[in-house]
Structures are given as structure tokens and as C-alpha cells.
């Protein structure tokens, strides 16, 4: 008798344990499944971020390593350097000159690709080609075009009787040239993202609109664009983050790679590079890196708020139109 009761109690306990385990399974497994991402993020994202902050409050030589703790000294020094502000200006200028036309162009290209073209796949692959070319190779090709004296563009301008543009001397032309390289590389990529979103727009909407007498332009403005909002937000935010961290193109814009004798096109990332690798002052370089991180954070949040407000209002508009 007693033996049987004991055995029963044991099996009950076993059932209880296995219940508990399966409950943990339900609760914990999802986290385990997504944990590789967070482990990786912690390793290559969060840790470097925090470590950079640690470096930025020390004297730190690239090769010599950690020195004394200096508190916010590095930040103060960097903020008082004119080159920091020049490169901040350049970063924003190049970012605006590249991102704005890029998004507009990409939507336009995507709209054309969305039509029934002959050899559809060929065209769609074609716009992605520049993205496959390494940025450094792009920079080499473009530096040939944007030569101050013997560049292709200035030769053409000279043939037309226009004064050559000093691409590597004046501020705005240098920014334009760099923005062109960025646009060349990223427009097609963004166009494909937009295209994918456009293909997801139900065709019935267009048919209904055309029956109602709307022309192509009208359907584009009133159906395609509003329904693209979420993707536009995504593209704007990613291109903001990418645009503010632009490095390859300005670095390769001339052979010295410092952003010009008067830092005409030095971006913040180039400035970080100059401090860290040119002057080997990792402390100051890390301080700028953190400032850049904060700037991007602020802009991204701003972006998000603004675009969400716009998107929210149009969505509501469409919905109210729909119910009417």
C-alpha cells in the first residue's frame, strides 16, 4: 500500500516538474530563439558603444593605449575645435544634397519600373548595378569626372565656354560631387525597395480610380504615394543614419583623404578618422564618435516623429475617404 502511494506521489511530482518545464518552455523558448541576435548585438553593437564612451573620457593613444582619466576634457576640446563644426556643417550639407534627391529620384524610378515594361527584370536588375560596385571604385571613376583641371565634366563645360568648376576647392561643388557619388550608389537600391512596396499596392485601387476617370499622375499622387508612406519613412530613416555616417566617398575624393586643405568636405566620420588615426588621439576621436551618435539619435527621433505625424494624418484621410 504505502509503496504504491509513494510511487504515486513521485509520479505526481514528476508530472508537476514536467508541467513546470513545459511552462518555462513556452515562456522562455521565444527569448532563446531571438537571443542570437541580441548576443550578437551586445557583442558588436552595445559593447563597442559603451567601450567608446569609456575611451572618450581618457587620454588614449591609438598604439600606446589607455592613459589618464580626463573626464569630459576630450569633449570640451573637441567642441572648441573649428574643424568639428566645419565637419558638422559638411555632414549635414552632403546628407541633404544626397538624401533628398535620392528619395525623390528613387520613387520616380520605381514608378516607371512598376509599369509593364519590356524586359522587366533586366531594368530592375539594372538599377541595382551601381549598388554592387564597391564605393571605392565608384569614387575612383567619379574623381576622374570631377577633376578640377583635367576632369571630364570641366572639359565639357570648357567646350561650352563655361568656366571650370573647382570641385576640390570650393565647398558647395565638392559637396555636390560627393553627393553625386552617394546618389549613384544608393538611388537604385532605394528604388527597388519602393518598387517592392508599390507592387504590394492592390491593383483594384488603380482600376477603381481609372474607372472614376483619374489619370496616371493622379493615381500616383493619391494612391501610390499615400500607401508608400511606411516605406518612405523606413527609407528616410535608414538613409539618414547612413548619410550622417558617410565616409568612403569623401575619403576617396582626393588622394590625401582628409577632406581638403581647409576641410571643405571633411565629414564627421572623416574627422574621427583624422583624430584617431592621423593624430592617434583615440580619446578625442571617441568623443566625436559619441557626439555623432547622439546627433544621429536626435535626428532619427525627429524624423520618426515628423514622418509619423504626416503618415498618420494621411492615413486618417484615406480612411475617412474610404468610409464616405
Amino acid at each position: 500500500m504505502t509503496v504504491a502511494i509513494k510511487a504515486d506521489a513521485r509520479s505526481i511530482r514528476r508530472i508537476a516538474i514536467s508541467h513546470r518545464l513545459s511552462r518555462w518552455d513556452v515562456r522562455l523558448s521565444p527569448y532563446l530563439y531571438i537571443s542570437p541576435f541580441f548576443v550578437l548585438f551586445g557583442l558588436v553593437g552595445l559593447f563597442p558603444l559603451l567601450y567608446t564612451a569609456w575611451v572618450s573620457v581618457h587620454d588614449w593613444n591609438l598604439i600606446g593605449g589607455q592613459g589618464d582619466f580626463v573626464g569630459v576634457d576630450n569633449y570640451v576640446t573637441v567642441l572648441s575645435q573649428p574643424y568639428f563644426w566645419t565637419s558638422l556643417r559638411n555632414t549635414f550639407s552632403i546628407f541633404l544634397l544626397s538624401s533628398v534627391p535620392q528619395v525623390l529620384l528613387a520613387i520616380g524610378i520605381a514608378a516607371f519600373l512598376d509599369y509593364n515594361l519590356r524586359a522587366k527584370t533586366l531594368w530592375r536588375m539594372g538599377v541595382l548595378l551601381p549598388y554592387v560596385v564597391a564605393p571605392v571604385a565608384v569614387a575612383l571613376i567619379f574623381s576622374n569626372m570631377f577633376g578640377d583641371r583635367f576632369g571630364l565634366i570641366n572639359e565639357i563645360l570648357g567646350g561650352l565656354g563655361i568656366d571650370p568648376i573647382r570641385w576640390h576647392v570650393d565647398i558647395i561643388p565638392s559637396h555636390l560631387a560627393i553627393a553625386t557619388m552617394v546618389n549613384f550608389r544608393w538611388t537604385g537600391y532605394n528604388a527597388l525597395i519602393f518598387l517592392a512596396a508599390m507592387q504590394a499596392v492592390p491593383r483594384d485601387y488603380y482600376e477603381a480610380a481609372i474607372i472614376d476617370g483619374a489619370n496616371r499622375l493622379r493615381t500616383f499622387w493619391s494612391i501610390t504615394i499615400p500607401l508608400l508612406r511606411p516605406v518612405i519613412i523606413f527609407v528616410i530613416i535608414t538613409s539618414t543614419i547612413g548619410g550622417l555616417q558617410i565616409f568612403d566617398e569623401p575619403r576617396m575624393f582626393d588622394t590625401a583623404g582628409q577632406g581638403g586643405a581647409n576641410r571643405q568636405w571633411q565629414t564627421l566620420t572623416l574627422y574621427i578618422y583624422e583624430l584617431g588615426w592621423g593624430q592617434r588621439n583615440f580619446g578625442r576621436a571617441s568623443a566625436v564618435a559619441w557626439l555623432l551618435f547622439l546627433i544621429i539619435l536626435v535626428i532619427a527621433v525627429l524624423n520618426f516623429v515628423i514622418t509619423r505625424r504626416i503618415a498618420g494624418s494621411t492615413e486618417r484621410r484615406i480612411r475617412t475617404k474610404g468610409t464616405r
Partner: protein
Amino acid sequence: MKRFPRTTVAAAIAGAASIALIATGCSAGTDPGKTYDGKVTLTVATFNEFGYDDLFGQYEDANPNVTIKHKKAATSNEARDNLTTRLAAGSGLSDIEAIEVDWLPELLQYSDQFVDLASADVAGRWLDWKEKAATDADGRLIGYGTDIGPESVCYRSDLFAAAGLPTDRAEVAKMLGTSWESYYAAGAKFDAAGTDVPWFDSAGATWQGVVNQMPNAYEKADGTIIATKNPEVKEAYTSVLEASGSLSAHLSQWSDDWTASFQNDGFATMLCPGWMLGVISGNAEGVTGWDVADTFPGGGGNWGGSYLTVPNQSKHQEEAQKLAAWLTAPEQQLQAFASKGTFPSQRAALESDELLGATNEFFNNAPTGQILANRAAAVEVTPFKGAHYFAINDAMQQALTRVEDGLMTPDKSWEQFVADVKALG
């Protein structure tokens, strides 16, 4: 009865496996250079033109177990960035890294990162000052000298003829004279002839000639920075910019436009250390008229010159040292000189008939060996280059470029130079 639902076990295994994958992915620590049959791949990183292209093949033929991979950076700046980045990262350096004398002092601070190359085989191979510069305070030799850069003046005899100036080497040398004033004066004469071609390439290049004649331009021997207070520097800055106003092509050296200008009659003369001969003949391929004059403004001067080092990171230090020793042996350096004009720093090579009898077809068959040997003998000053030399000189180059580009007045640009130097500290 099942203790664990199968999914839990599977999940645990999958999780563990993925973490293990991540871990192993990071530490793929196999030695890429060596295969099982004792073959060694040595990587050699150089910049500009070292003249080693043929030599590597010869070494491989003589040592069948060695394969050499050559990484060539376009500029010395680029090579320096690459070297310091990988030195800091602790991996990724080539087995042999070429370094330039201008940034050698920075690296001497971390000489323990390089293999001590001193050995009986190479004792006394180089000019004393060349060897001394690469020896650290503890007497470790971290680099084998390759070339030195005794400076002459290269000129376009066809453009000289068009301007009615003498074209013969000896006469040109006489006309250019031995001082900066006479060099600029000859330029003014050339300019006055109305050929519409600038006299020299850039203020920055000319500055290199001037600054390499100052014993302590930017730093005192104890390392104190005096760049912004040194009257010699300020004076030279002013005079170079004065000359550049009417005589310079304003083509910043190594820029794409500068390179392209060799094909477009960009300028008539340029200061010419030995290694520059290879650069000119490369850039000006197909252009006739280049020649070398046996003179240099302000006396002699040495511009640049390099070393081969073996970083501690190398997995084949012995093999690398052997190759470096072979490449910098007098016989091989003479071949490099024949191919790219990199003038030897090795005593035996300097006295060899092969060097003294060498001519350069591209430069109108000029006896470049003899001319550069004369120029080397004329060098009187060994400029002191401390830990900040490279960075300060870089700031100076930018100051000169700002004025040449018309972005700033000389005074304004000097002020910024002062600020830049201050920011280094």
C-alpha cells in the same frame, strides 16, 4: 514518460549550437601563410615606387618555397594610415612593411612592436645616418634602409627651348644656380618668355625641398615643438608662397590633377629626389623632353627615403627578415635603382661603377647615377624629425595648399597652421 518535450531539447541544442557557431566564427585562427609542404607566403607592403616588381620574381625563383604577395599603396600617407591602424589592432600587417623616414620617428616610440633586425650580416651596410635613424634607444635596428632621396632638379628641355632658355644639362644647372633665389629668378625668366606654363608644380613640393634643409624645423632635438615660433619656418613659408604666386601650377602633389598634368605640359621643372624619377617617368609616359640637372637650390637636400621593417605580428619573421635583407642588399638595390630610380643608401652600392655609370633613357639618357651621387655628396644637413614631424608637416602642406587654392591669405592660413599645430598637443 518524457522528461523534456522534444522541442525543448531541440531548442536548447539549436541555441547552444548557434552560440558555438558565433564563437568559432570569431576565432578562425588558422595560419593562412603556411601550407603543409613548408611553403611560405610572404606579404610585402610598399608605397609609391620601390622598384621591386622584378626582384620578387627573382627571389621566388631562387627560393621555390616562398611566394611573395605585393601590396602597393598609392601614397606614403595611405601606407602610414594602414600601418598604424593594423599596428593598433594587433593583426593584419604584412610580413614586411615599408616605412618612410618622415614617419619613422613616430614608430620608434613603439619599436618593441617590430623585430630587431640587427645582425652581423648587415652590419655597416648602410650610410651611418641612415642606419642610426632606424635604431631605437636600446640599440635595436627596426628597419633595413632601402633608398635615400638626394634631390636634383628635373626639367622639361623642350619647354625650356620654347622659352629660349638653355637646354643642355650643365648650362641649365648653371642657370638654376645653387640658391632658392636663383632658382626662382630662372623661373621668372621662363615666365617672362610667355610660354604660359608654370615653373614648378606646387608650393607644397617646393616646401619639401626647403624644409629638408633645416636642421630643426619643427622640433628641438629634445622633442619640444617649435614649429610656430621658428622664424626660419615663417620666413621660408613667406618666400615659398611669394614665389608660388606667379611660378606655381598650384597642383597639389599626388592629386589626380597633378598626375594628369604630366601629360598636359603642367609645369616646366620640379624638385627631384631619386625616387621621383620613377614617378615622373611613370606619369609622363610618352612625353619627351624630361631631363635632370645636377644642382639643387640652397645646397644639397635629402627628401624621403624608406626602410623595410618586419612587424612582430608577422608569422614568418625569419623568412621575412631574410627577404628584407636580400631586397636591401646592394646588388638588389642597384636593380631597383635601374628600374625606378630609387637611389641606394648602401655603402657598397654607392661606390659601385654600376651606379655611377647608370643612365636613364627617359631623362634624355642623363647620367642619373653620377648626378644623384653628386647630389648625395652635397647634402649637408640631416634634419631632425621627431614624433610630431609628420603631423606638423602635413598641417604645413595644407596651409600652403589653402593659399594656393585662393581660399585664404598667407597670414590667415598661417594663423590656422598655428591653431592646427596647437590642436595636435
